[in-house]
């Protein structure tokens, strides 16, 4: 029943995320031909040089194939950004927040350890995020034949795994911060700041790219070289585990 409780507490955030990502996935497929018609314009912009020109040129080169287009538009941009937002939203809440809004004392009076309460909440959030990482992407595979294209299930699975494993750091960081702060917005805001800093660091220091959060989440190395970003994935999983352990330690030490 703890699982049911965790589901009831997060279901609207999850369902809204699902609906939004579903619509975005459909629009990525259905706007493919329109974007292709704009490609000559992109080539002329890239010829003007500069940072923007290089970026547009890089995008145009990758998006010359349907597989590249889906990766750039979906896994690198739309899904990556929206998924991070919902990882952050699903990570907020929990006992510390309930302590100020009611319900926490009732939960704590039940014969359940705080570790188990946190484990159920984190597992539910991670399961919902896994669904958000794979199912909307699956829509692209299903819908692609409508525009006479195809997108492999294998690509959906590989990019989904990269997104989920690396992006879980965002969720775990929010869960950890939620055991510190008794309101919903401070953990979300702090996580957002960390995410923005990490994204900026990747942009400013390309040497960090193999370990960069967003590069790892998008699975860029798989698209370009056919290899998984193992270093980034391993680091991400380890950071997530440490954050969850720290959250457990925090929660167990907390007075309600």
């Amino acid at each position, binding site marked *: *029943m703890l699982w049911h*409780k965790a589901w009831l*507490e997060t279901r609207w955030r999850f369902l809204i995320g699902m609906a939004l990502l579903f619509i975005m996935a459909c629009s990525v497929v259905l706007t493919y031909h329109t974007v292709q018609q704009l490609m000559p314009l992109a080539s002329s912009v890239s010829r003007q040089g500069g940072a923007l020109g290089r970026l547009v040129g890089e995008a145009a080169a990758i998006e010359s194939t349907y597989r590249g287009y889906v990766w750039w538009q979906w896994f690198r941009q739309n899904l990556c950004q929206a998924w991070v937002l919902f990882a952050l939203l699903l990570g907020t809440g929990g006992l510390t927040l309930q302590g100020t809004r009611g*319900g*926490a004392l*009732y939960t704590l*009076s039940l014969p359940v350890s705080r570790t188990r309460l946190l484990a159920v909440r984190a597992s539910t959030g991670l399961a919902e995020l896994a669904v958000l990482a794979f199912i909307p992407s699956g829509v692209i595979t299903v819908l692609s034949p409508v525009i006479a294209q195809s997108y492999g299930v294998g690509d959906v699975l590989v990019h989904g795994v990269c997104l989920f494993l690396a992006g879980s750091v965002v969720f775990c960081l929010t869960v950890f911060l939620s055991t510190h702060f008794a309101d919903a917005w401070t953990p979300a805001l702090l996580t957002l700041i960390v995410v923005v800093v990490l994204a900026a660091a990747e942009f400013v220091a390309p040497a960090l790219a193999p370990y960069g959060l967003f590069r790892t989440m998008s699975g860029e190395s798989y698209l370009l070289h056919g290899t998984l970003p193992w270093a980034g994935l391993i680091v991400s999983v380890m950071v997530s585990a440490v954050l969850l352990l720290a959250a457990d330690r925090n929660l167990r030490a907390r007075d*309600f």
Partner: protein
Amino acid sequence: MADRLTIEITDLRKRYGAVDALCGLTFGVPAGSIYGFLGRNGAGKTTAIKILLGMTRPDAGEVRVFGLAATNESASLDIRRRIAFVSEEKDLYDYMTVDEIIRFTSSFYPSWRGDLAARYRRTFDLPADRKVKALSRGTRTKLALLLSLCRGAELLILDEPTSGLDPAVSEEALQALVSYVDSVETTVFFSSHQIAEVDQIADHVTIIDKGSAIVQGALDDVRERYRRVQLVFDGDAPVVAFRAPGVVRVRREHRMLTVVSSAGADEIVNEARALNPASVTVSPLTLKDIFLDTVTKEN
């Protein structure tokens, strides 16, 4: 059974910043008793209850429930399997319906009394499909009581169970509690700042003030021990320091000297005779008098 203690609290201390919430609180709750934990708002009642339930850690002292250390994580789990708790705010899950929260709670207690739950739901007129957030405070209290009474718990811990309720709902809740305790073998430990409520249903009491127990024992014994001795003099009452044990308070007003004692009146009366009062009157104290005299004295 009365010799066995369900709750043993020894020299319990807890400080929040610069505020001492508990300062050496010590008392024991006999098994099978209805134990009133009386104190003003902010006296430390809720802090003590949270420590009993493992929600808050004490800075010092020992807390045992069923002989198990409440501060030990795994022992606290065992303790919570055997107790039921109703918080002052009746904090429940707003997003669940009445039926959902009953099913949710029942899943944690193998000895859950489904028959009793159905009976209380009818008696309390609880709407099965209504969300908790849509319930009035009175109805939420009744639901919280149902959830605690049906667990088959050996110990009920109730923090201000009738706080914020109108007198009719308050009486209904107390009656439900009393009839439950009559039908099963259980210990009830309830905090309150409402003296009449404790007087009505408790058989033991601790009065707590500023984090320490200032009165404790079986309610009949407490009533028996506490006496008010009024001495009236022909002229102004003398300033006296009584040597008799148990003097709680001495009040001097014009010709009258009032002494409150927690150890009977005999020794005070003997000592007072030497002062040649015009009259000596000894009267028993109600729980309200005891509360006001002890707590007011402390403040």
